[in-house]
């Protein structure tokens, strides 16, 4: 853990323009939450008898926690595959993961019609181990606790609590191992969730036993890509106050290459063995969505050499990978979901506001916390130099 020694809070002004901008949407989100709790789901959402799950599940839960896989992807790289050089990226990724999961959890709670009965998920004799949703919920809950514990050292360091820090460090390895395992379980389950929907899912997305595999690979692709994405944003936003991590990011693309390759090959294999090529070449919206999903994740791998030389291109590649993998999950859960009987669904403004608001909360909290807590690497040194320069000039 030698690298954590370089990590210090960024410091600086808290109420910046981006913070104010995103706080506005965070406030709207809170208003929508209150409206939903007081008036019920019908006044806020376009959900209906055929579409019980909308974007609060398809985007907030499936994509939100997918984008929150950065901490998990890095845990595998650093602690399981022993790629210590990625260590400086761990804490910022953990913070983003913690937010992604906590807010994903909040979003499902808002989606639950009878949220006050939620404790039954955890009471033996009530919970149903046959249910994929039970596995997902229970596993996610434990993982949120794991993320809190993984992130706790940053808090403890900040407040100088050395004894709890030392105690935590004694068994942190077990927590990290659990943190490497749990998302493997619930992220694959997010695909398995839709096996029971059967024929309601378009044949190109209803891949039955392949669903957990696709969901797992998608989660890993999103996890690695979000690390590149966030790293680039932080570097751009805090010019010269944090080190340039591009060489690390470039090496991360090697892992993404393998994951994307497996995803595309298996996805086509699933189409092939169940003779669904006709759907791929149908020329309707679904065949185009299928092709677009694959194209969005394929080009960064095809042009990997050029991407590694070019910072902006690397950023675009990360965005494209995230969009492609997110599209797969949204298509599976919403676009390719057809209950029949003439039901239609398009998200309401308030549904979108809640989803966007949760992302806004994440961004605001992230910006504030990297300034207050020791999260970003190398900042302390450069920061002190900047302050010194400013003092000289003044």
């Amino acid at each position, binding site marked *: *853990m*030698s690298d954590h*020694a370089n990590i210090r809070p960024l410091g600086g002004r808290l109420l910046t323009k981006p913070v104010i901008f995103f706080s506005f949407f965070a406030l709207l989100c809170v208003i929508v939450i209150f409206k939903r*709790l*007081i*008036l*019920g*789901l019908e006044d806020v959402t376009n*959900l209906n*008898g*055929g579409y*019980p*799950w909308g974007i609060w599940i398809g985007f907030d839960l499936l994509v939100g926690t997918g984008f929150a896989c950065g901490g998990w992807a890095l845990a595998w790289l*650093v*602690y399981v595959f022993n790629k*210590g*050089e990625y260590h*400086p990226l761990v804490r910022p990724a953990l913070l983003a993961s913690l937010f992604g999961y906590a807010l994903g959890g909040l979003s*499902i709670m808002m*989606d*639950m*019609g*009878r*949220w006050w*009965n*939620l404790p039954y*998920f955890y009471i033996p004799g*009530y*919970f*149903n181990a*046959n*249910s*994929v*949703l*039970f*596995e997902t919920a229970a596993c996610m809950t434990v993982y949120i606790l794991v993320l809190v514990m993984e992130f706790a050292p940053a808090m403890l360091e900040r407040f100088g609590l050395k004894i709890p820090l030392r105690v935590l460090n004694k068994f942190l*390895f*077990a927590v*990290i*191992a*659990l943190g490497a*395992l749990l998302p493997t379980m619930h992220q*694959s389950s997010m695909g*398995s*969730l*839709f*096996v*029971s*929907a*059967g*024929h309601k899912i378009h044949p190109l997305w209803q891949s039955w036993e392949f669903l957990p595999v696709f969901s797992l690979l998608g989660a890993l692709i999103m996890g690695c890509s979000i690390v590149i994405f966030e790293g680039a944003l932080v570097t751009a936003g805090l010019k010269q106050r944090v*080190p340039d991590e*591009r*060489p690390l990011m470039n090496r991360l693309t090697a892992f993404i290459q393998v994951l994307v390759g497996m995803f595309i090959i298996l996805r086509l294999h699933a189409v092939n063995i169940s003779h669904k090529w006709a759907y791929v070449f149908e020329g309707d919206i679904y065949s185009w969505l299928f092709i677009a999903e694959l194209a969005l994740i394929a080009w960064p791998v095809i042009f990997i050499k050029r991407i590694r030389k070019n910072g902006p291109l690397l950023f675009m590649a990360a965005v494209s990978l995230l969009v492609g993998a997110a599209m797969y999950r949204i298509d599976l859960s919403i676009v390719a979901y057809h*209950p*029949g*009987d003439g039901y239609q669904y398009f998200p309401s403004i308030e549904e979108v506001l809640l989803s966007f608001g949760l992302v806004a909360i994440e961004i605001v909290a992230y910006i504030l916390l990297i300034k207050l807590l020791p999260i970003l690497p*190398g900042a302390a*040194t*450069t920061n002190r130099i900047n302050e010194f320069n400013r003092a000289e000039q003044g």
Partner: protein
Amino acid sequence: MKRRDFIKLAGSSAVIATSGTAVEARQSHPASPDAIGMLYDSTLCVGCQACVVKCKEVNHMAPNPEGEAQWEMNSQLSPYALNVIRRYDSGDGSVKDREQDGFAYIKRQCMHCVDPNCVSVCPVSAMTKDPVTGIVSNDPDICTGCRYCMVACPYNVPKYEYHDPFGQIQKCELCNQPGVERISNGLLPGCVEVCPTGAIIFGKRDELLAEAKRRLAMNAGDTYNYPRETLTAGREHEKAIPEYFPKVYGEHEGGGTQVLVLAGLPHEKLGLPDLPDQSYGARSETIQHTLYQGMILPFAALMGLTYLTRKNMFQADDAAEDDKDNRQNSHQNKHQNKHQNDKGNGGHHE
């Protein structure tokens, strides 16, 4: 990763692979020998909607409280309508029970599946199937309103009361829910009691299945004494046997249903999907049990991961300790660290 580690990881992977294949695919649940059910014969239905009205009366549901009070003709199932009669129309709609240029009626309600997806997927066991009667019912005191049952139901039957901040799932519970309990009290389901043509009859599932097969086996044009209410109520009426579509819907579909449907045209045309014999829930459970049976697989994986994490972490920690404790003596170590950082940081560090 060193070779020794790799062997250990491969070892736990082997456990994972072998324990995974040990689980048998989850077979469809068989129907209870005392399972009750209903037989709906679309060719007998005249679309009078008496069953729809009676259903609302029995279940204390206002006719369409969200708009004008009206017949539920061709409307969807809703939290206010647990039973609807929908109409199929084709071309000029001149002949009953014909696919081309014809029309037909279909009664939509909970099919009370023999192996219900909704029960399989309910995370809190709020949706249950009575082990004797086979009635599928929902307990709102446990239900979390996650609506996974709605996602998993191949017939879109469970409906959630979105309009109510404390809404619940509503579905047909065969008139036997607490407070109604018509079956337990020896009464008929509301819809059966009022059906004038015997289009919907009540009885034990296996007897109704036999009756349905009897109807399919007879020659079109012959006359038959169609029973009303139940097979043995003695309230038959004579009618010519129509041209049936040769399938008892619900004998095998999705593991079988306790509400069986006969029709004069393909059931798919009436909105009843063509389902595989294994229920989707059983297929989903097979995946879950393969991965999580006895938690052996996750536990094996956790052991492997814990070993590697501990090893990789303490290796790094030892370096940190050295760095702190022997600041003077470990110039080399520190230097190396710094050098590494510079490399990783692309030179911005200084």
